[in-house]
């Protein structure tokens, strides 16, 4: 879904979200209260510059608008694959973005992630996955890597991975599998505003993804292993 359509569905036409290149930023009013929006578009490749822009926008919200909810609009093809970004410490810039979102959560800002188009690995891990909870549109795509590339790196047959990716939530792209594994709390279907309203009302900020993954059957052992370490 186009970000304009998402914004209009959530906030009507009267919002102040703007795209500057691949960077989305602005504010909107939802149920009478201001919401800050930070995100990316055009299937952005997130490099140092885009990570830092998002971080600054998050810090500005924490500095200037205490408690204001943050909505992260996620559309990324993953991390930028350039030598300059590695040289300049893309891992540090992304860690910084994650730390800024963590600060916002600790300072009482509700932080909601929404994958509205696609989310791949590196661009996702320090945005939507650092929210209190991440949600997705049903048509969104979430994955770590495409199957042919995965086959190349793992040296496993592409046919095997293709067939597993149709049946096994651990391999398969698609938001339903991320819901089953607890990585995505819910899909916003139909009435997007109802989805955001419910997300904002859920103020349990503990990380319960492993428990949800176990309860939903998509990630069966993680929660048990965590429990066993605590009891060892």
């Amino acid at each position, binding site marked *: 879904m186009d970000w304009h359509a998402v914004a209009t569905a959530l906030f009507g036409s009267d919002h102040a979200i703007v795209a500057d290149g691949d960077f989305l930023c602005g504010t909107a009013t939802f149920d009478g209260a201001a919401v800050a929006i930070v995100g990316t578009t055009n299937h952005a490749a997130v490099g140092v510059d885009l990570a*830092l822009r998002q971080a600054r926008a998050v810090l500005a919200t924490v500095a200037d608008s205490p408690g204001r909810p943050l909505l992260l609009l996620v559309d990324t093809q993953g991390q930028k694959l350039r030598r300059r970004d590695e040289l300049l410490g893309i891992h540090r810039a992304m860690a910084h973005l994650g730390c800024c979102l963590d600060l916002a959560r600790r300072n009482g800002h509700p932080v909601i992630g929404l994958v509205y188009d696609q989310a791949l690995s590196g661009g996702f891990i320090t945005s939507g996955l650092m929210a209190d909870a991440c949600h997705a549109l049903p048509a969104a795509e979430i994955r770590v890597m495409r199957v042919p590339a995965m086959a190349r790196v793992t040296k496993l047959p592409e046919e095997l991975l293709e067939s597993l990716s149709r049946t096994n939530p651990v391999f398969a792209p698609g938001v339903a599998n991320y819901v089953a594994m607890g990585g995505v709390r819910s899909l916003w279907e139909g009435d997007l505003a109802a989805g955001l309203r419910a997300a904002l009302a859920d103020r349990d900020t503990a990380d319960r993804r492993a428990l949800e993954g176990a309860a939903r059957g998509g990630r069966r052992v993680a929660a048990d292993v965590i429990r066993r370490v605590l009891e060892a």
Partner: protein
Amino acid sequence: MNGASFAELSARERLAALVDAGTFEEWLPPSARVTSPHLAQLGVPAAFDDGVAIGRAALAGRPVFIAAQEGEFMGGGVGEVHGAKLVGLLRRALRDRPAAVLLLAESGGVRLHEANAGLIAVSEVMRALLDVRAAGIATVMLIGGANGCFGGMGIVARCADTVVMSDIARHAMSGPEVIESAQGAGEFDARDRALVWRTTGGKHRWLTGDCDALVEDDPAAFRAAAVAALAVHRSMTLAALQRESALLQWRTELAGEGADAFALWTRLGVADARAVPDLDADAVRARRPAAVTPLANGAA
């Protein structure tokens, strides 16, 4: 084990060499056979510890929790069980309050064989680590394995209070092979080892301020750096993160569009940048420009 190469040790050997002799007590050891439920269907052998050892130990007499990733098993990749062991260790630290949590990080990031579960697991590790750091427990990453620290674990590592690297270690996001296959050898020639190391290696990370201690590839040097890191707590206040933003922004603008390490070091104020690759860790330590250190920027 003085004189041995830290990089050539196994994860458990590194762990034993780092902490006070004989103090490591492992949780979910290989005898518990907590293995990945996902590898068998791929015909890939499992490991009885899923590639990571976790437990408690003493370091200079202080109680610490510690984990070591084994790069020889799936490149240290984080799968469902591997990640859950790290999350369990960190949540237990939050409950039991050791002096520090140390991670001997060696990982290619998300284990692609369990891709989706690994991605979520890395994110859980990151959240749990930041909880531990926010609680005032020292968090220390020690990067000295031959495989380096990449991908999601590269991000997680930089979320710690202290990152220690050896001069032969690498810390980055995407491996050079991945960038070369996406953009061509003109962008990043993965076979050019000198280029790879000056772009992602320990000396570069030290000179640019991306790591907090640079040591020789030696177990005793890592141990000494780990002991020093027990006392290091970097606050995560709004002001501290604003300074980090400003520092990274300044550095990025200084680099311009360039991707050359020598040019960047020179612009940062490193004297005789071309000589750096041939210097030992001691000599490189002395050359770090004050402007990139967290203390100079008040972030400590």
